[in-house]
């Protein structure tokens, strides 16, 4: 009786979680002098609509965590990645695409520069789906793209035919955001996607990000080097250090935090100082 009850609870939980990382480790260059344990037994669950901001010192394993979720490489033996109730641990590379949308740090990574805005969006619309011999652009798609782009408020809806490389960094990141979310993947991954932008543009792109995530009810993970940003956005904050999640701060707790108290919390949990100059200096946001 008891065990079946447990099982049912477990199943219900699985259905409810968008992401489950179970004891995920990642070792690079195993067995060589360069061996790095980039992730050390990380377990993490995300409920639908969770918007986690991630901070951590350089080399803490933040990008590695996102790469594991995105399926760029598998975790070390024993780790499991479950997305939307499906075990995707062995679903790697392009096969993982339907689950994960992603925006990178460099604006040119998220879009195909020679293709037009509308062609980029058409590519993204079919994320993870088979592609056939239908003409990619039609009136219906264009209308859809226009409404999506109009919501950005950047005027891109009138420039559908323009090659993506002619856009500014901020515009390109905004386009990349739309591309990452237009087909409603289970998870949105953002890896310091405003880091290369000037402060003002970064602010714009961040508020666009927040708007899209809220409107589309996305489950999202956003890595940032800016503590204020990490505190302002999202409903959950995790701190990473040396391949581990050392702090996981829930919404209510997060609301009352200041940058200094966050730093202190980090130092208490890590047992050492936060080593990232850019975090302390970046208060312009």
């Amino acid at each position: 009786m008891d065990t079946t009850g447990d099982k049912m609870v477990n199943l219900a939980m699985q259905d409810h979680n968008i992401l489950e990382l179970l004891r995920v480790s990642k070792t690079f260059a195993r067995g060589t002098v360069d061996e790095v344990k980039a992730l050390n037994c990380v377990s993490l669950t995300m409920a639908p609509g969770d918007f986690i901001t991630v901070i951590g010192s350089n080399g803490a394993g933040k990008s590695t965590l996102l790469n594991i979720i995105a399926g760029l490489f598998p975790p070390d033996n024993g780790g499991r990645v479950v997305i939307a109730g499906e075990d995707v641990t062995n679903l790697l590379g392009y096969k993982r695409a339907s689950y994960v949308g992603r925006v990178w740090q460099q604006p040119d990574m998220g879009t195909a520069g020679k293709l037009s805005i509308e062609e980029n969006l058409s590519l993204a619309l079919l994320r993870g789906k088979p592609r056939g011999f239908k003409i990619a652009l039609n009136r219906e798609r264009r209308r859809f793209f226009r409404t999506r782009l109009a919501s950005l408020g950047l005027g891109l809806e009138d420039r559908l035919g323009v090659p993506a490389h002619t856009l500014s960094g901020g515009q390109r990141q905004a386009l990349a955001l739309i591309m990452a979310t237009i087909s409603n993947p289970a998870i949105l991954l953002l890896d310091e996607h405003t880091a290369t932008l000037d402060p003002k543009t970064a602010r714009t792109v961040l508020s666009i990000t927040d708007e899209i995530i809220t409107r589309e009810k996305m489950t999202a993970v956003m890595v940032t080097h800016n503590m204020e940003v990490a505190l302002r956005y999202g409903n959950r904050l995790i701190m990473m250090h040396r391949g581990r999640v050392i702090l996981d701060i829930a919404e209510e707790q997060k609301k009352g935090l200041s940058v200094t108290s966050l730093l202190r919390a980090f130092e208490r949990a890590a047992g050492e100082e936060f080593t990232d100059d850019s975090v302390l200096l970046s208060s312009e946001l």
Partner: protein
Amino acid sequence: MTTALSILNSSLYEGLAFGLVAIGVYMTFRVLDFPDLSVDGTFPLGAAVAAVLITTGVNPHLATLAALASGLLAGFTTGILNTKLRISALLSGILVMVALYSINLRIMGRPNISLIREVTIFDWASNFLGLSGLSLSIVVAGVAALVVFLMLNWFLRTDIGLALRATGDNEHMVRGLGVDTDKTVLLGCALGNGLVALAGALVAQNQGNADINMGSGMIVMGLASVIIGEGIFRPKGISWVLVACFGGAFVYRLFMTLALYTTFLRASDLKLITAALVIIALAIPYLRKRIRHEWIPPATRW
């Protein structure tokens, strides 16, 4: 006056036939960003397959289609070397080109096959249309060019075609959107080389023989045509890019024919001129940056 007209006409025919080569080169070099040198082998491959089949009595249309298929297969092989065995694109193309030299000789059985006494698609069209000479050549090559133009103009706008174009632009992103880019690379290599083999089959039938050496320098010629086409037409959009390939091939051929009318150049100098042309065209953007003191990335070695 009549020579001027005949020069224009022969350049027109060559622009159409070798425009197919230019489009093939465009598919790999530009669309896929895959410097595929197997073209030097697939051009005579197409000629060899068509010639052998025609001399054994196969219908010339079927023989031409078979040539196209042989090119698809050769391009596919180049793609496999690169995507599945991770040999560099440049070397994959060279390996297939070298292998094709032997294969082409095996197919032909001798270095040269004459088609003078055979019924080619040009003879068929001649009966059909009542044309002869250059105008016949132009019409047949024109029909082939038109069909290829229409098909590619459609294909490159489809969802698959878009994925193919994006592969050469930002492969990382395309994979992130769920496209198996190995497949798009294979498709692009196959298509490019298929078109080149088709051109080989047409040219062999038009000139009345297939020769083992007829592909030498084809890659540089195709590249020169693409560069000239891009320079003159500055194409935006797929249709114009395709037109620019034919236009570039036409101008290139015209240029080469005119070069022969000068007293100091010989036919055997044309490859040197072509190479010089490509070198200049490729060096200009770099030199421009040097002059403007812009940032220059390290030289790529593919």
